[in-house]
């Protein structure tokens, strides 16, 4: 379970987030929704520990990063918006390195990885340097290395841009598997139709503040739009005057 509690923060002297609070329970997929610049990426940077909050806390299953950074990171798997790969490592070595870093059992993890590699049609490219792959394929490598771990919290930043439709479908399948196994998933995206279909709860960010959280039914009630979809609610939110 991920708990963000009264988080205020941002870059050195530029506060971006103001009093952000939300939770992602075990076995749930949460959609982090907001305009460009609303604070989605900043929120994610705080959760993975790249930024330190000015006030407030981020806990993953009761643990903060300042208590034990190693144990904290052990629980998290992250798929960044832009793929980050080592130019000197082959695809196979990326998987070995991830096994090594997370201290995973070699044989069982390779079995998991093999399945994912086949799924994303990467299984014949094990000896290649993935940093030379296309954006979509590099994205798939990031997905494979994240989902072969046994993390309890998966953070996926804009997963759908650059992936082909088949890969989007496969990604959603494995996300749901992890959800069924009890993991929490936080997914930031602009593809609202997909988010509406797969996410259990939504966190609507606007100008660095949480506008509202809840299921689609909760959002409909909140905005007084009974037969609206996520698109309509999102547009309604952006037209509201900015709270300061």
């Amino acid at each position, binding site marked *: 379970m991920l708990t963000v509690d009264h988080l205020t923060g941002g870059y050195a002297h530029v506060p971006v987030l103001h009093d952000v609070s939300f939770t992602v329970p075990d076995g749930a997929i949460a959609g982090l929704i907001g305009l460009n610049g609303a604070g989605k990426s900043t929120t994610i940077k705080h959760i*993975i*520990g*790249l930024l330190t909050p000015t006030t407030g806390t981020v806990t993953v299953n009761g643990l903060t990063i300042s208590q034990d*950074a*190693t*144990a*904290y*990171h*052990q629980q*998290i798997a*992250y798929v*960044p918006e832009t793929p*980050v790969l*080592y*130019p*000197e*490592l*082959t695809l196979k*070595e990326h998987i*070995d*390195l991830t*096994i*090594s*870093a*997370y*201290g*995973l059992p*070699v044989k069982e993890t390779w079995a998991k990885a093999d399945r994912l590699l086949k799924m994303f049609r990467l299984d014949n490219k094990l000896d290649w*340097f993935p*940093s030379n792959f296309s954006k979509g394929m590099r994205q798939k490598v990031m997905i494979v*290395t994240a989902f072969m771990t046994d993390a309890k919290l998966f953070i996926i930043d804009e997963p759908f841009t650059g992936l082909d439709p088949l890969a989007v479908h496969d990604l959603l399948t494995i996300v749901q598997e992890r959800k069924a196994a009890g993991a929490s998933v936080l997914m930031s995206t602009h593809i609202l139709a997909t988010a509406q279909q797969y996410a259990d709860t939504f966190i609507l960010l606007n100008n660095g503040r949480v506008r509202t959280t809840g299921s689609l039914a909760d959002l409909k009630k909140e905005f007084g739009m009974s037969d609206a979809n996520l698109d309509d609610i999102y547009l309604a939110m952006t037209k509201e005057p900015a709270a300061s």
Partner: protein
Amino acid sequence: MKELWHTRQTRHLTQQLKYLRLVFNDHFMIALIFLFGALGVSYANALKGILTPLWWGKPILILAFWALLQVGQFASLIFEADAVFLQPREADMGDYMRGANGYSLPLPLVILLFVGALGLPFAVQGAGVTVMQWVAFLIVLVVLKAADLARQGMALFMGQEKRAQQLYGLTQAVAVVSLVLCVYGPQWLAAAGLLIAAGWSARLTSQFRQTAATQRIDWLTAVAKEEKRQFRIYRFYNLFTDVPGLTSSAKRRKYLDIFLPRVSLTPAHTFTYLYVRGFLRGSEYLGLFLRLTIIGAVALWFINTWWIAALVAALFIYLIGFQLLPFAGQYSNNVMTFLYPVPAASQQRSFGRLLTVLLVLAWVIFAIPMVWQLGLSIETAAGIALVLVIVLAFVYLYAPRRIAKMQAN
């Protein structure tokens, strides 16, 4: 457009100054002073041994300075974004490029004249060149460099690349002919050499001006060339400090896989796994290690005083180690590395181990020419032991502090 050039130039120079301050840091300066001192003494000693001009003196001078003439590229300071944003002002780019041409000349000029001044004693003593001839030789070099830069500038315009390539061959031929005329035969022939070089340079410069005034810039070529040029510069700076945004390319080098340590896939060995592969397949550190180790070993082959040998070996150990230090932070910009549940101390240990293995390897390689040249004796052993002490001091005392300082910046 002239204004745009000037703002670009100022910004570029400020940035170069910032990096050069980091390159010529105090430690590096001390090492350089020692190196130049040692080279200066052996140069002076070698000159004393030459009584009559050597038969190969003139050819080697022509060859060396002809090679030096290739140093220095046309700095256009063009960015990728220019192809989009400057497109509407394309007709005015001639002014900009003339500014770039003027800016590109001073640095190679200073290098040519500096090395030329260093070469004077050898030219007079070793090759039998008169001072007047040498002055003409250097003027020819400067004039030809200007011609070469104008040619390079021309190549950045549409449809000019092929012509620039043909002109390259001609420029080299003119260079060799006029340099030969400067040092061979009676002194008045040097004037002929000067005349040929000046004529060629004037022709290329006017061609460049005409091209710049009438032709469109070949954006793809210009951007690619400038990026390559800047990449080379920043790769050099990256040896001393962390240059943001510099990504180096990697080669598979499968034949080096035998050097990969068979480590277990556990968090304690994660960074060893990463660093060793990065070192063996990356584009810079392996080459740097081999270059410095070979140069050091060759230098030691010529030294027959045990304490000077020890000093030179220690200096090379320091140089190698120092240049390898930025590799510690190679992956610090990678968010995945940050996320690994591996304690930071384990990363430092992994780098320390790699550094130790490499410096001990260099030490063993240096010991071979030392024993060969000095013979087995107490002094030789003392010298070699002294170098080992430097290795250990570097790895355990100096490196951790220096790395911490580099990462704090």
